[in-house]
C-alpha cells in the first residue's frame, strides 16, 4: 500500500542567466515513507539542483518556475513546501528534511568545534532545551554514529574524512527527521570507509525509519542500496524504476549507456564494454 512521504509534481528550476538554463524540467516523483530513492546522473544533470530546490535552498540566479512539493508529515498534516513563508521554511528545514553533503572538509565550519555545530541545531530548533540537555543530546548523537562523545570538542580538521562524514550524519539525525537527502555522501571517501558509512546509514535507518534520497553518479553503488532509482539527464528524470528492474531491463538508451560505463568487478573480463 503506497504511503507517500514526499510528492513532487511538475517541478522546474531555471538558472536565470542569458540564455536561461533549464536545470530541472517538469520533475514529478513520489517518495514513499521508509524508502531509499537513488538519484543517478552525471555532473550538471540537475540532480543536486533538484535536491536543493526541494528545500528551497537555491540561490540566485536559480529560480523555481513551476511545480509543487508536498511533504506528508507523520502527524497526518500535508505541508505545501512552496507555500511556507521564510520563517516557517527555516523551521521546516532540518526538522523534517535534513541533508548530508559530500564528505569533504568543506561541509563543516572549519573554525568551530563539531560540538558547537551540533549544538547549533538544538539551540535553533529546540529552544526549550537547556544547556545540559543539549550537551547530552550532542554526546548521544556522536555515540550513535560511533565517533565517540570525547570528540565533542574536536575541530573538523582534527578528524579523518570518514569521521567528518559521520559527524555530518549525526547532525542530520539530530532532530529525527523523516527524510534525509544525501548528496554524494561517500564520493570523496575510500571504498572501505564508504562501505562502513553505508552500513551505518542502513543501521540508523532501521532504527529511526527515515527515508533517504541518495544522490550520486555511482550507479553500481545505487543499485546495491536503493529501493528505486531515478536516472536524471539534462534536468529530466528519464527513467524511474525499482533497482532490480533498472538493472535487468533498463528501458532508456541513456540508462543503458550509464550501466555500461561501469565495468563489472566479477563479471566477464577483458572487454571494458559490456
Amino acid at each position, binding site marked *: 500500500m503506497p504511503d507517500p512521504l514526499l510528492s513532487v509534481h511538475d517541478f522546474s528550476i531555471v538558472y536565470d542567466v542569458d540564455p536561461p538554463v533549464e536545470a530541472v524540467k517538469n520533475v514529478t516523483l513520489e517518495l514513499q515513507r521508509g524508502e531509499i530513492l537513488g538519484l543517478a546522473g552525471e555532473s550538471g544533470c540537475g540532480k543536486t539542483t533538484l535536491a536543493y530546490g526541494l528545500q528551497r535552498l537555491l540561490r540566485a540566479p536559480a529560480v523555481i518556475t513551476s511545480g509543487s512539493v508536498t511533504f506528508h508529515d507523520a502527524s497526518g498534516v500535508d505541508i505545501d513546501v512552496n507555500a511556507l513563508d521564510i520563517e516557517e521554511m527555516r523551521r521546516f528545514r532540518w526538522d523534517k528534511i535534513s541533508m548530508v553533503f559530500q564528505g569533504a572538509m568543506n561541509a563543516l565550519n572549519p573554525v568551530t568545534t563539531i560540538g558547537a555545530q551540533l549544538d547549533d541545531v538544538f539551540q535553533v530548533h529546540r529552544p526549550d532545551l537547556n544547556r545540559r540537555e543539549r550537551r547530552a543530546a550532542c554526546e548521544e548523537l556522536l555515540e550513535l554514529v560511533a565517533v565517540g562523545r570525547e570528540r565533542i570538542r574536536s575541530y573538523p580538521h582534527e578528524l579523518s574524512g570518514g569521521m567528518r562524514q559521520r559527524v555530518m550524519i549525526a547532525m542530520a539525525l539530530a532532530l529525527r527527521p523523516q527524510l534525509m537527502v544525501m548528496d554524494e555522501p561517500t564520493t570523496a571517501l575510500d571504498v572501505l570507509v564508504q562501505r562502513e558509512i553505508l*552500513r551505518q546509514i542502513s543501521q540508523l535507518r532501521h532504527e529511526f525509519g527515515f527515508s533517504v534520497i541518495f544522490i550520486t553518479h555511482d550507479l553500481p553503488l545505487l543499485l546495491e542500496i536503493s529501493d528505486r532509482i531515478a536516472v536524471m539527464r539534462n534536468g529530466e528524470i528519464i527513467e524511474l524504476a525499482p533497482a532490480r528492474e533498472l538493472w535487468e531491463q533498463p528501458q532508456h538508451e541513456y540508462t543503458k549507456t550509464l550501466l555500461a560505463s561501469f565495468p563489472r568487478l566479477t563479471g566477464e573480463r577483458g572487454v571494458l564494454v559490456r
Partner: protein
Amino acid sequence: MTTLEFVNVSKRYRVRGAPSMLALDDVSFTLHDRETIALVGQSGSGKSTIAKILTQLETPTSGEVLLNGKPIPRHGRGLRSYRQTLRMIFQDPFASLNPYHSIRYHIERPLRLDNVVPKAETEREVRRLLERVRLDADSVIDRRPHELSGGQRQRVAIARALASRPSLLVADEPVSMLDVSIRLGVLNLLADLQREEGLGVLYITHDLATARHFSDQIMVLHHGRVVEHGSADDVILNPQHEYTRELRSASPDPEKHFATTSAHPQGGVA
C-alpha cells in the same frame, strides 16, 4: 625491450614534531613494455609516492629504480632520454594543460624537444597524434584547453604523452575526474593504444573494477606495502590477502548483489 624496475624501494617522510612516516615499504616490481600493471590502493597507500618517484619529484630513501638495468640519471642527456621513454598522464586534465597555449602548441613542444620528426613534418605529426586519440584534428588543433570538454582534454594529454614515442606510460588516475559516461571511452582508448603501440602501462587507480579490466596484473598497495601481486583475475576473483578481500567486498558489485539477494532489496545496504 624496455624494462622499468623498482628494487626494494622505500620512502620515509620526516614530519616535524611527529614520528617519521614510511610511505613506501620495500616495494619491488618490474614493468616491461607490452605489459599492463594496475597499482591499486586507497588514499595514503603510497601509490602517489610511486608516481612522484617516477616523475622524480621524490627520491627513494632506500632501494633503486632502474630503467633497462641502469639507475635513472639525475640530470643531463640521460634524464632527457628517461623522460622520453617514460611518460605520465595525470588525473586532472585541466591542471596539466596550460590554459594560455593552443592544443597545437601542447603537442608540438615534446615533438620539437625530442626531435621526433623533422621540423617540416611537425604539423602532420601533430594531426596524426590527434587523430590517434580519436579527436578531430581540424576542429581542436587551434583551440585552447578551456574550449574542450574534460574527456577531450584528457585525450589531448594522452596525445601529448605519445608524442615523444615513449615505450612506457604511467597513468595516474587518468579517468577519475571525468564524467562517468566518458570514462570508459578514455580507458578503452588507452587500452587500444597500449596494444597497438606495444606500450607498457602502469595504471594507478583506486578502482578495482577498471583495474581488473584494463590490466594484465594487479598490485595491491596498503600502507606502503605490496600486499598482493598477481594476474588481474587471480587477485580479484581469488584474493589471497585479507586486505584485498576487504577491498573487494567493499566495492559495489551489482551483479553479485542481485544474484544473492531476494527479489525484495528493501534496505539492502551492506
